[in-house]
């Protein structure tokens, strides 16, 4: 295995346009109050990614194919459709991020968004994305700016650290929604499909399971490490001054203590980098999932002709989202946060399938889930389900009033 494993790629792409925005908003709106959620998410992400990696390595198959082969056809169709919608919203968020970068620099929106969409499509279709991916991954050191900004904003460290382990709760709909969005941007539907397919496609042997584990754990840690500092940075700057974020340029202010006037550029480039990586990885994962489930697979490496459905799906996702983002007065931030929340609504369903598969003797053999993992898995499903339910109840109650 090469140094940069799928866990790291997934972890980095997790901090995509939607991720950066959601973390920024979470910090600006609620200060440190949501950090404990992030702490729990780290474990959920690590455990579910490990399960996906193990399932992929042992079975040699992607999650979509396994669901299709082992569950009723209608159930497969249902979960794949939901996943598609959630992923599509995710890709929409990436282009919203790209459009935000255009706004920061005053570049005509349509020009920047469409040329970025064209660039991503060209990179993937010509087979260059894998090489360019390294550039995006390397540029993700830009995120370290947030770590520095976190320090420079002179946060109340004792409060920040305390908030990691001490849960706090603000009983409002917005707080709950933000918690849900936070989960949805970190533990993603596409990431679950991505990690498994990647390991299966690479033909990693079961002997190397521990290497794979190290990789996904590291990826899970990295994504939440960055998220922590984004929240600390925005909490230390925006929250304490009571600035609510209404557009992406506001989020750049979080970087001012560290970067001063450069903050705008640092934020813009970080966001652009994240959006492009996300647009590539999430869209590839989405198109791959669909073709795998519905049996239209062809080798992605094999070029346009041999796997035309893959590329058609890919292009559809890229350009439909790019065009929607170009609609004037597009409500950027709400859409970003909602796309993450949508993810959280689909997650428990997906994890249910995942857990069932991981307990199958005929698929997993001696690598089946142990009792601890199963309990953790079910707890995750139940809490996600509970959160979603609570949100709907809030929604209904607040509408009735």
């Amino acid at each position, binding site marked *: 295995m090469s140094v940069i494993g799928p866990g790291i790629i997934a972890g980095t792409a997790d901090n995509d346009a939607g991720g950066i925005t959601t973390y920024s908003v979470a910090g600006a709106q609620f200060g440190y109050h949501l950090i404990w959620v992030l702490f729990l998410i780290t474990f959920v992400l690590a455990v579910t990614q490990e399960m996906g990696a193990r399932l992929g390595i042992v079975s040699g198959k992607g999650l979509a194919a396994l669901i299709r082969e082992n569950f009723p056809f209608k159930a497969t169709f249902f979960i794949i459709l939901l996943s598609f919608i959630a992923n599509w919203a995710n890709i929409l968020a990436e282009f919203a991020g790209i459009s935000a970068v255009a706004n920061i620099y005053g570049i005509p929106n349509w020009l920047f968004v469409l040329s970025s969409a064209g660039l991503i499509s060209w990179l993937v279709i010509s087979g260059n994305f894998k090489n360019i991916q390294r550039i995006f991954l390397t540029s993700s050191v830009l995120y370290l700016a947030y770590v520095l900004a976190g320090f420079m904003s002179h946060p109340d460290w004792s409060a920040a650290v305390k908030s990691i382990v001490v849960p706090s709760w603000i009983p409002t709909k917005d707080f709950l929604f933000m918690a849900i969005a936070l989960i949805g941007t970190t533990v993603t539907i596409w990431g679950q499909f991505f990690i498994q397919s990647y390991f299966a496609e690479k033909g990693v*042997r079961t002997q190397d399971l521990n290497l794979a584990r190290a990789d996904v754990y590291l990826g899970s840690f990295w994504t939440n490490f960055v998220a922590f500092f984004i929240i600390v940075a925005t909490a230390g700057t925006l929250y304490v001054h009571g600035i609510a974020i209404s557009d992406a340029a506001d989020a750049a202010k979080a970087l001012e203590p560290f970067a001063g006037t450069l903050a705008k550029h640092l934020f813009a480039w970080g966001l652009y980098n994240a959006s492009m990586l996300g647009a590539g990885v999430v869209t590839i994962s989405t198109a791959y999932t669909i073709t795998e489930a519905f049996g239209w697979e062809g*080798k992605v490496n*094999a070029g346009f002709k041999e796997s035309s459905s893959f590329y058609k799906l890919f292009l559809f996702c890229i350009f439909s989202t790019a065009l929607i983002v170009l609609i004037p007065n597009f409500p950027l931030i709400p859409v970003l946060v909602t796309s993450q929340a949508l993810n959280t609504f689909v997650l428990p369903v997906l994890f249910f399938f995942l857990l069932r598969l991981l307990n199958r003797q005929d698929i997993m053999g001696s690598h089946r889930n142990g009792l601890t993992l199963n309990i953790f898995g079910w707890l995750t499903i139940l809490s996600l389900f509970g959160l979603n339910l609570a949100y709907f109840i809030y929604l209904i109650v607040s509408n009735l009033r």
Partner: protein
Amino acid sequence: MPYLSRLLNSQVSDSADEVIGRLEDVLVKVKAGEYSPLEYVVIKRRHHKKRIFIPYEAVENFSREEVSLRTLYSKINILDSLPDGYIRLNRDVMDQQIVDVAGARVVRVNDLRIGDFEGRMCVLGIDVSLRGFLRRLGLTWLDFFGLFKVNLIDWRKAQPVKGVLKLDSVSKDLIKLHPADIANIVEDLSVKQGGNLVLSLDKNMAARVFEEIDPEIQKILISSLSPEHAARISESMSIDELVDLIQSLPQHQSKQLLEYVEQDRMKKVKKLLSYEDDTAGGLMTTDYLAGLPDETVEMTVEKIRKLSDSFRSVNYVYVIDEKGKYRGVISFRKLLVSSPQELLKDIMKRSMHLPVLHPKQSIKNVAHLMTKYDLNSAAVVDQDNKFLGVVTVDDVMRVLVPNA
């Protein structure tokens, strides 16, 4: 003629219209090149965990309207355990991948077509179309313009993958395919299944199929195999392909692979490894037929008989003297029309009249020269005219047209 998806889960009743349970699965035996008759139906009874197996002869109606038995349930010879050697259509074929042998590709089964063949109910075809997809969702009415056509693959031309893609059951049709087509199928399958398919072929075929696989997937496949299995394939690969593979692998893996290479092949491999990839030296193979100037045609033909198994496409005999110097070349046609007692040196085309390649020449140069002189293969020699190897036109094509 019904589709399996329409029948599954329907109620099964006996001749007294007593409901026994629901149809869960159907067992068949797969025989290469034949439609498989339905042998047993698997029934799930209400409130019973154990499934029962009823021989298909006991089934009277097997249609969308009704699945029923000929006799009373109590009179049927019921099995309550699974007989060996059968596959289950619902569990093992529906929604699984199958190899479409005629199309040399792998597809996913959306539905199965059942029907009468020579008086027996058989599986006739595999539906891989979007229409089958809609049928499974119960949404065929959506297609009121009839846009989606059913696309059936003949059951006899298909090879199920799950559980049965093993050494003894790979269908004969599959083996008869061209190695490049089998390679296509391997690329379509998951790494594990693809690896199993390659390993199920005999040694020479496995190597030839492997050589046809996309280099990127080759790399993944070889590292997913155990060292012994990898060695089994690499053993029969031609030297130049083996060298290409070794060069593409990370160091610890290429070392592992090299450990299994036999001593005399090793020398050649090492030699080839020392040349740059896109030069005549990197392109050439050291698998060639050679003869001494004083050998007779008869001796040479005998040699070809013995060795032809271990060589890929060989159309020439290269005449090389005791000192290893390149003297000339003889086409097989020339060998055929010459009398057995003639000496090679008397019938060969002399090397001094022939274009030759030098190991450091670039691929562009090589292609240019081979095109100019209409060569199928060209000898590679060093400054002292010592014979090093042969570049064939397909080695060049592979580099120039990598995705074919």
